[in-house]
């Protein structure tokens, strides 16, 4: 299997949900300053 593709896929696999969680968190954090 193409290694760079595998690396990108693997990081995307864990990175995408993590980014979603981080985004939701940032939305909440902004409430502190409203």
């Amino acid at each position, binding site marked *: 299997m193409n290694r760079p593709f595998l690396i990108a896929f693997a990081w995307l*696999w864990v990175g995408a949900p993590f980014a979603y969680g981080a985004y939701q968190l940032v939305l909440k954090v902004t409430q502190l300053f409203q």
Partner: protein
Amino acid sequence: MSAGFLSRSRIVAPNGWSRWLVPPAALSVHLAIGQVYAWSVFKAPLEKYLNLSGKESALPFQLGIVMLGLSAAVLGTRVEKNGPRWAMFVSLLCFCSGFMLAALGAYTQQYWLVVLGYGGLGGIGLGVGYISPVSTLIKWFPDRPGMATGIAIMGFGGGALIASPWSAAMLGAFGVAYEKGKVLAVADDAIATTFLVHGLVYAVFMTLGVLLVRVPPEGWRPKGWSPADSKTGALITTNQVSARNAIRTPQFWCLWVVLCLNVTAGIGILEKASPMILDFFGKTSMAVTATAAAGFVALLSLANMLGRIVWSSASDVVGRKNIYRLYLGAGAIMYLVIALIGIEEKVVFIGCAIVILSFYGAGFATIPAYLRDLFGTYQVGAIHGRLLTAWSAAGVLGPLIINQIADSQKAAGYSGPALYTTSLYIMIGLLVIGFLANELVRPVKARFHEARELGDLGKPAATTAAATTTAKASKPGEIAAKASTAPSETSGATKTSNAGETGAAKTSNTGETGAAKTTNAGATGNAGKASNPGKTGTPGRTGNSFKKGNRARTGNPARTGNTGKMAIPGKTGNTGKTPIPGKTGNTGKTPIPAKTANPAKTADAAETANTATTAKTAEAGK
């Protein structure tokens, strides 16, 4: 269970395998099991649907954390032995079946099934899944162990980050109605379906880790790096200590205290973050609303998560002991600042809380690298598992202190910041004790080191230490104890030889360095105590002559008349430099065929019984 697809031998990385594929494998497990911190999302719907109290609805989480600590401590050695793929698969199986069982419990309205499934079965998945990726990453990143452990353990913090909004959205989609954050109604099967989907999705998500995880091949090093390049210090050992021996060292218990108190201090603020900021500033000119308080809690979660990777990576540069000085020392100062100034200044309070929480997360993330420095990589996962009992203890201690004191202060008529000031000073005291415990950490004494040198990757590489230690040791019993621990817990070594019966004859693979010279080692003062020729060329479980006390069988000069450089008239008739006409057909300088083991095992033995080192062993013995 560990055979075939899941076995360690199947996941040895081929040439050219990028180590940057391992962090996503580890993260796919940690991001999943980190969901446990988002349990609170299920609490209110469960309370409404099954008519539970707050205490009852917390049970699955509490049992899960207890099981995490217990299973990591109890199964840590097995996890190390069977390898990360086995561990990740078991974790997947337990964690996801736990959700399924919880789904069944919610569907049938049998709450005990929810507790047993999510907390009991799922908790085992947490413990097994927590330690294995960490120790695997340490082995892949010997040049940056702090960063490696930071990545994995940040993933555990990130798990709640993902699960919290995702689970809430799913509950809403399946029929839980909310109004202003409160649960109004729960449709039949809403919780059960949510649990079921969680189990299925996490199973798919974790599968990547099971498929992708690899262990580095024997002798692998990062490109352009050698152990000599790494930061050296008195606390960074090149020796290896087994899990069994580690818990006998004061260093382990010092770190246990450090972790427990650092976590207690963090939980102290994490547990009460929302009511705390409201009590501090709710009735002041800097009024804080409930919504802002929720934002504050989220901010602390972010600090907790980022602290894991940032501070843990920094520990690679400044050293582990120094970074814990910062966590504990500066943490105590931050608490003091809150107690003295923070009650009046919102910004100061928030800033200090952020720093404390970043230290809290970092304390978790850096501890495996600290363990690796002190005890080596050999069984660092198992040692880490045993240390996690400190987490379980802190999980009880932290909330207990802060809740108990806040309640008693309330009963005494106090309000606002006064509810927490005593707790804050107690936290300072705990952190100071933790600081002192960290100061007491010294290099592990040689008597706890494995009686063999082990490769960086945790596999036995040579046997020098056996004779060296033997020569140094004064008590035969001590030698026997040390030698007995290591091999029994190494998968490779366990199978490498079978000297149990034949001692030196079968295990000393090379006639020249084996039987002949090892008897020298014995002759240097250990004969008749713990010395056995087998010790120098016998890295295996049964082959470890210390452990088995083979002196009575083969190495004991009294019985066999085995002396000095003479041949050993044991069962196999192994003789120094000459071919051995015994049962095994062991011939002088060649590896032992036939009875030694199956080909795979023999290969292991060849790796481990380094003959050159064996020669050194004999010298050391001399």
